[in-house]
Each structure stands twice: as C-alpha cells, then as structure tokens.
C-alpha cells in the first residue's frame, strides 16, 4: 500500500489542476441563477395565479427564474428571483396589467316569455345577444317574448341594477364576477348572479291590497367567456305562473381599435 502513495499524490495534483477549470465551467452552466437576485412584488388587482403566470412569461428560460406566489394577511405577493432584464420586463408588465382593476362591461336584457302568441315589437339586440335570442326562441316552449328592460353594467367586480318589468314590477339584478386563467384567456367566472323583486315593487301588492314579501327569482353562478351571451331564466314549477322571466347576459368584448 505504501508504494501507492506517490501515485496518489501525483493523481491529486493532476486532478486539482484539471478540476479547477472544469469546476469553473460547471459553475457557469449548473448555476443559471448566478446573476439573479430576489425581489418581491405586491399584487394589487390581478388574480394571484394570473400574476404568477405573467411573471413566468417574462422569463426567457424557466431554469433562470424562481417565482413564488404568496397570500397572507397583508395581501398577495410574488417573490421572484431572476436576472435584471427579467425583473425589468416583469415590472413593465405589472405596471401595465396590475396598476388598476380591469373593467368588464356586461349587457343585460330582461324578457318576459309567454305561452300565448302576441305581437311584440322586434327587439333591437347586439349580434351576440340576437343569436342567443334566436336560439332561445327555437328551443324554449314560449310563443312570444317581450323585452322588458335592458341594462349596461360596467364593473370591476360587483354591480347591481334596477330593472322594470310588466306593470311597473321592479327587480334588482346583482352580479359579481372575477377573471380566471391568464390574461389572454378571456374567461370570467360569475360567482353570483341574482335577480330579486324589490321590496317597494307594485307587483307585490295583491288585488286585496295586501303586500307579500319580495322573492328572489334567480340566484346562480356560471362561467362566461368574454363576448359570450348566456341565458338565465326562471319559471314556476307548480304551473301557477305561466310566464317566464328570461335574462340574456352578455360579457361585452372590448372594441378593437
């Protein structure tokens, strides 16, 4: 064993000489985060996952970035480790997308469906709502539809509107939504859409002069793509009411310049 010592010593010297440049080269390639640094970005308005996706999209190579999304009592934040150029792109993107909440416009048409044919004036509807209305007419068993009211609802999250129906009956429509997916997905989730009778609606007064309690007519939630029109309607299961209230709700797409 003793005779091996000179060999080993020479080997160690050789290995040290060879490993120096090799380690330097390896350090360059195996540590892509060498020139990166950390920064924490507070997210004000974007959905946290949408902001996380936005941050990843600014990284030219995934291996050169670390993105961590955190949600705490102080709010939403992204902890990002990346190089200076990526940080600069992310700041630019957040300044554009997260500086203010994005407004989404909804258009609402309230119809009354009736089992009896009646001559109703043709409603002037935008193209998306018109197609939904034609589909609806060919599918539901009501013979006539009368447009009662419309509303234009620009909102960043929650909005309500007053609608007037037949005989002065008044309704309150309330909508709450959030964006889902990344910023290009154009997908919304309406996590609350309600239509209820207003407490001072004249429709609540019976022929005998007694007032009944207002009813909630619709309370539902659904996904909705920007530009899509969905139909939400209600009728009575016991057959006492032969008419239906039908809402056409459109998530209006932004006009392209």
């Amino acid at each position, binding site marked *: 064993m003793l005779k*091996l010592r000179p060999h080993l010593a020479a080997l160690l010297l*050789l290995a040290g000489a060879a490993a120096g440049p*090799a380690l330097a080269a390896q350090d360059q390639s195996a540590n892509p985060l060498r020139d990166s640094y950390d920064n924490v970005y507070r997210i004000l308005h974007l959905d946290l996952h949408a902001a996380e996706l936005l941050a990843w999209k600014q990284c030219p190579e995934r291996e050169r970035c670390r993105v961590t999304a955190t949600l705490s009592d102080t709010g939403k934040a992204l902890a990002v480790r990346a190089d200076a150029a990526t940080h600069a792109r992310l700041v630019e993107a957040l300044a554009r997308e997260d500086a203010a909440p994005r407004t989404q416009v909804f258009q609402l048409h309230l119809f009354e469906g009736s089992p009896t044919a009646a001559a109703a004036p043709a409603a002037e509807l935008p193209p998306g709502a018109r197609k939904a209305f034609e589909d*609806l007419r060919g*599918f539901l068993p009501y013979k006539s539809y009368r447009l009662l009211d419309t509303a234009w609802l620009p909102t960043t999250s929650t909005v309500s509107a007053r609608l007037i129906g037949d005989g002065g009956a008044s309704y309150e429509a309330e909508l709450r939504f959030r964006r889902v997916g990344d910023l290009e997905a154009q997908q919304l989730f309406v996590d609350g859409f309600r239509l209820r009778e207003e407490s001072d609606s004249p429709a609540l007064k019976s022929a005998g002069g007694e007032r009944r309690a*207002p009813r909630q007519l619709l309370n*539902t939630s659904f996904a909705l793509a920007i530009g*899509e029109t969905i139909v939400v309607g209600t009728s009575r*299961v016991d057959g006492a009411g032969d008419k239906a209230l039908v809402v056409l709700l459109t998530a209006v797409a932004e006009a392209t310049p």
Partner: protein
Amino acid sequence: MNDEHRTDPDARLRALLRDADPAAGDRLATEEVWALRRTALHAAEKAGRRAWLATPALAAAAAGIAAAVFLWVFQVRPEAPAAAPPRAAAAARPVSVEPEPAPPVPQPPPAAPDPPSRAPIEEPLPAPPTPPVLAEAADERPLHIEFATPGGTRIIWVLTAESES
C-alpha cells in the same frame, strides 16, 4: 444555495479521482484475501452466536409483555360466562341498522340475564334515513337546469316554487 455549489463539484471531483486512479486495477495478494476472509468469517460467527443467545431471552420478554397487555386490555376474568357474549352483540349492532324496521321475528325464551357488569349498554339506534322526496327538495331550494341549445347558446333555467320567498 451554498450546498448546491458544493455538492456537484465534489461529486465531479470524486468521479475524476476514481476514473484516474492507477491503483484501481490492483488486486490483493492471495494471502491478504484469505486473511480478510478469515477475519470476516470469524466476526460473523461471533455475531451469530450472540444473536442465538439473545433470541430466547428476547422472545420470553416479548411473550410476557404481550400477555400482560392482553390481560390489561381485555380484562379477562375467569368467572365470565361463556354463553351470550355481550361484546359480540354490541359489535353486531351497527351491521343490523337498516332503513326500514325489520318485521318482528319470534324470539326464543329469554336466557338467564347477564351479570350487571357484563350487560350491554343500550344505545339508541340512529333514525333510519329518510328517502329524498322531490317535492320537498323543490320547496327547499330552486331546481337549476343547465343545458345548451343546438346553436350553442347555454341556458340556465331555474324552476322556482310558488311558495318560495
């Protein structure tokens, strides 16, 4: 972070040393091989003897502990009657729960009552589940139906009872 720096260079250095080791191919002399083998066999034989000596003692201790735990957990009493074991009755009770009450079955004459300490505790059976009734469900909450027209328009229809407020 620093660990990442250290781990990979160390592994690479070890690989370089192993690859370039001139003594890697050297073989031990026959005498050295036999000496190593004798040492290893002797050590294994001694360890085996110790293990065989220790096994009966360990087994006796384990059996004693198991018996003590068994007696403590189940509280075996020599005077306990062998017939009508209440534990079996209690264990069978959950299995006999049915939605509908079973029809009366002629029972044999009652056996001698168990000692009070062995009598099963009478627990009230849970009420049989009530099958859902469509009319009642409609009274409680509106029925939502979602479908799409052939043209692709999605429709959510809410069927509301007259009595609902």
